[in-house]
């Protein structure tokens, strides 16, 4: 992650052998060179197939190129288009709206439930297995499942009819105003259980004497939550919000199979347009610029989460 100043690197202080005679020093130097040979294969694959393409994308984002004819320099035109184009800008906005449904609502719900229900629960493992399930599944299959649930005859409409809300039933993913929210709700479904089980497990580790201390000071449940529970869950909140935010911004697979950006581009996300621009519309420069902007959005959000949840020095 770009947040190198706070990233904790695993490592140990190397043990320095006693006297540093010239012979030993030369031996140590050759050992440190051999050590690089262990890293070389991983580094070459990583540089060749991840870092070089990433740099190349940044370069391509400054070009006008259709993938075939010689490219021309575009300067910042492709970036300007993201702010002015009626299609590109909204896709970035849609991704940020999805963060609300994938990350903010599940985390808030999880915290609320934890405050309400704190304590040890038996059978936590079973709940954890169920709540983590959406995390391991291919999103394409999750998307197909929800296409069916949101279908005219699907489970969502069936449920609404069962409680007498026939009037609001519709093909949710085809609704101009509600498709993005319907898509977001898939994220809420996938992430709420995850957040809740992480927070409840974290809250079990809190020393109960801290609560008693608040109670002696005359603090109520709200004070108890903000003074003890919330700070104690710092680590879990970081984990949950990073997982859910990245999932929201990497929603390409899900959108591709559910709405493919429709209806009328109401659910386009950057990943989808990167794919479409580069491989269907031969606008390589535009696609590259959007990919760079998406990366910046990811870095900004993840860095912000880490800053906000960092322990105050």
């Amino acid at each position, binding site marked *: 992650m770009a947040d190198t100043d706070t990233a904790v690197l695993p490592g140990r202080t190397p043990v320095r052998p006693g006297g540093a005679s010239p012979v030993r020093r030369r031996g140590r130097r050759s050992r440190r060179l051999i050590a690089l040979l262990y890293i070389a294969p*991983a580094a070459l694959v990583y540089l060749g197939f*991840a870092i070089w393409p990433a740099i190349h994308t940044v370069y391509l984002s400054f070009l006008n190129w259709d993938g075939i004819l010689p490219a021309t320099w575009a300067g910042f035109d492709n970036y300007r288009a993201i702010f002015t184009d009626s299609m590109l800008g909204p896709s970035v906005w849609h991704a940020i709206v999805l963060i609300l449904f994938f990350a903010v609502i599940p985390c808030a719900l999880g915290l609320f439930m934890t405050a309400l229900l704190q304590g040890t629960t038996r059978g936590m493992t079973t709940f954890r297995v169920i709540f983590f399930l959406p995390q391991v599944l291919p999103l394409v299959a999750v998307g197909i499942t929800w296409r069916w649930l949101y279908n005219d005859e699907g489970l969502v409409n069936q449920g609404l009819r069962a409680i007498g809300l026939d009037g609001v039933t519709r093909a949710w993913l085809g609704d101009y105003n509600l498709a993005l929210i319907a898509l977001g709700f898939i994220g809420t479904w996938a992430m709420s*259980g995850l957040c809740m089980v992480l927070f409840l497990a974290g809250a079990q580790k809190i020393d109960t004497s801290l609560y008693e201390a608040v109670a002696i000071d005359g603090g109520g449940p709200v004070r108890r939550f903000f003074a003890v529970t919330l700070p104690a869950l710092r680590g879990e909140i970081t984990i949950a919000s990073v997982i859910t935010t990245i999932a929201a911004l990497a929603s390409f697979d899900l959108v591709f199979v559910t709405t493919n950006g429709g209806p009328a581009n109401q659910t386009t996300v950057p990943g989808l347009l990167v794919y479409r621009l580069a491989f269907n519309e031969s606008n390589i420069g535009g696609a590259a610029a959007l990919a760079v902007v998406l990366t910046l959005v990811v870095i900004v959000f993840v860095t912000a989460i880490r800053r906000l949840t960092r322990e105050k020095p």
Partner: protein
Amino acid sequence: MNTTRTAATARYLVLTGMAVAVLLPFVSIVLAALHPSGAQISGLSIPESWSWSNFADAWRAANFSNLVMSSLIIAAGVVPLALVLATFAAYSLATLNPFGGRAISVGFVLGLTLPIELVVIPLYFDLRQLGLTNSYLGVILAEAALFMPFGVYWMQTHFASIPGELLEAARVDGARSFTILARVLMPISWPAITTLGLLYFMWSWNQFLLVIVLMQDPDMRTAPSGLGFFVGQYSTNIPLLSAASLIVIGPIVVLYLIFQRNFVSGITQGAIKG
């Protein structure tokens, strides 16, 4: 204390309610998959006759023999390759004090949250020039590279947690660095390697964007990417689509249920790196 009992019951009810909400969609597609192909069905309805033949039909219609084979070939390449490379690099970074080790670690950490969108366009054009599109090798190398930051980080954390005395003792005995890795560290590192291998398999199996870009040949696509196009062809045949989705979900669910501890620890600790 009656309130504690009430709280425990309430907690249990809420958790159970949410668990049902998570599982209900799966119940819905399992039921849908068992209806006769092309049938008009609704949300949760028990089929009059159980049509197991949907699975065979979906298998044939989506050409899953080829798709699953491609998935397995790619996973069989990515998982060992990425494991070995990440283990070697992490071993060196954590214990051998290489020149520029700290900078190299930072370099790997930088790649942790690179979205695939950032690399996929040049990968396509560069690999096409090298003849590595429509090639298992191309996808294998690209996935190994994308998974490398996490693997190096994961194994480096693991090796750094091993007591230094163990390594010193082996060094004093005159063991070479490779012998120490193979004889001293590997035997106690299998749990960390197993977790990493399972995550690698899952990411490789689930990978979508990279595969649809690098594999234009439909027969060489992986199971999820084939499924992504199958939706377009059979978008109205819900039973067939549901059966196809369950085929793609199946292997990963089985692995998850067997190794749930590894998956959960990998996923949660993977986020700390953020």
